[in-house]
């Protein structure tokens, strides 16, 4: 199923993929904070452009552009709402500054979405799970996360098989009114849910049989260590935050419209 293909992480080896997910996450939060601090378009534009070297280094341009397209709809919506509300609340007038502000709001949204997108595109579920295990997140959550990811392709295949089995008994999923079509999914959903329950029971048995709960001090086969690249990223993050704070406090930022 092509929808679920997008969730299957592709094993690409790039310097960005190898970075520690915890550091990457801190970097993304820093971008998040910087984006919130500013409402002028120039710094937001700079923040957006800052993503691009990461995207290129990680070789995920295609997927990143695809997520940009996805965000475009919501972004346009934000822009239009902004314009309209300013228009109606300021006596039916629109200045260049108003448009610029609307654009800034939109760009801020895009920067937020896109920085998270880069994070998820460059962090494998294994890596993410490992990071979760090694932070102070309780092990049950990290385990639930990795197990869920592990079974996504399995469930997707099963869903397809169930649909095939029911189609082979005359079920037509594409015909009928909206209501009928929703009801037609019951013979697909129920086996899927029952199977999920059965599966969790079998998994629980297997977990118990492998000493689950033996000790509170779980050890780990892998250890996430910080490497040179991570130190560089920490430096970049710190710089971004420092520059942002400095600019916020001491540098007056003119709107673009003042240049015209």
């Amino acid at each position, binding site marked *: 199923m*092509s929808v679920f293909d997008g969730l299957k992480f592709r094993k690409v080896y790039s310097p960005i993929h190898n970075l520690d997910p915890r550091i990457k996450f801190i970097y993304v939060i820093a971008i998040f904070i910087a984006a919130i601090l500013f409402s002028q378009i120039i710094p937001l534009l700079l923040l957006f452009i800052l993503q691009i070297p990461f995207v290129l280094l990680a070789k995920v341009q295609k997927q990143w552009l695809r997520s940009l397209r996805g965000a475009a709809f919501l972004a346009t919506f934000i822009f239009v709402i902004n314009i309209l509300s300013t228009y109606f609340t300021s006596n039916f007038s629109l200045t260049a500054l108003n448009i610029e502000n609307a654009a800034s709001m939109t760009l801020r949204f895009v920067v937020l979405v896109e920085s998270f997108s880069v994070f998820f595109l460059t962090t494998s579920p294994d890596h993410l799970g490992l990071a979760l295990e090694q932070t102070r997140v309780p092990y049950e959550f990290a385990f639930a996360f990795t197990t869920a990811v592990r079974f996504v392709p399995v469930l997707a295949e099963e869903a397809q098989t*169930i649909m095939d089995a029911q189609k*082979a*008994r*005359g079920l037509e999923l594409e015909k009928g009114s909206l209501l009928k079509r929703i009801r037609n999914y019951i*013979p697909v959903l*129920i*086996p899927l849910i*029952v199977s999920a329950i059965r599966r969790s029971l079998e998994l629980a048995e297997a977990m118990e049989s492998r000493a689950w709960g033996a000790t509170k001090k779980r050890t780990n086969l892998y250890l996430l260590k910080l490497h040179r690249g991570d130190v560089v990223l920490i430096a970049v993050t710190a710089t971004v935050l420092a520059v942002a704070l400095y600019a916020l406090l001491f540098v007056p930022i003119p709107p673009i419209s003042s240049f015209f």
Partner: protein
Amino acid sequence: MIVVEDLHFSYPNNVEALKGISLTIKDGEFIAIMGQNGAGKTTFIKHFNGLLKPASGTVRVDGEETVKTSVAALARNVGFVFQNPDNQLFSETVEEEIGFALKNFGYDKETIEKRITWALNLLSLEQYRKTSPFLLSGGERKRVALASVLAWDPQTLILDEPTIGQDHDQKEKLRQFIMQLQTQKKTVVIVTHDVEFVAECNPRVLLMREGKIVADGIAKNILTNPQLLSESSIVLPQIAQVFTKLSSLGLPKDVIDIYEAKEVLLRKAKESHVK
């Protein structure tokens, strides 16, 4: 009748799963499709009821091209029982489960009632009519799944790995059931790994490898060809294994049935006065 002409099929990831298959299945035949995992067996049978459509070539079921027909329409003549019954059970009672397809096909209430009773009796499930299918044992659920497909009496029945997880008795009952269907001139196609089961049934065997049919003949001939089988990572049936090791005695090579084996050996023994 199912006629396949130069069938090619590729999955979305561009792997060619079927590389030119041509075949005719006449009404009333019993066929076992065998081969390694990944040979394309399940991909192939999904073309018989239109779940998959050919990329090139044609598949005709009773004269109709599957490309031009919906799965629901083809399903009336081609019943497909999947490997895992839990992939289709969803109703509150066994009765409803068996009636599901009948409702989809638009039969009237009276016919549905009759057919349900008929299917329940056919597979000795009448006692479970009002039981929830989820409360039944594995073997019983398999019978419910089978009953729900037989209910609309399709001419062709396809069974995907019907012997997995079954014990000896259950397999024997299945074998007898297939024989019964054969007397009713129904076409039965099974996909299986179970060489012993195929040896006992002695059907027409299609051996698939890497998307093609590499052998087509009766079980007796195919299951006693060590080269063919090893190329497909299939183990010879036990009786055939014994006879391969007895080649120095000059016995026939194509024995897979235990009773035939006994006769052949006893005859040889009489000749050599070993009785």
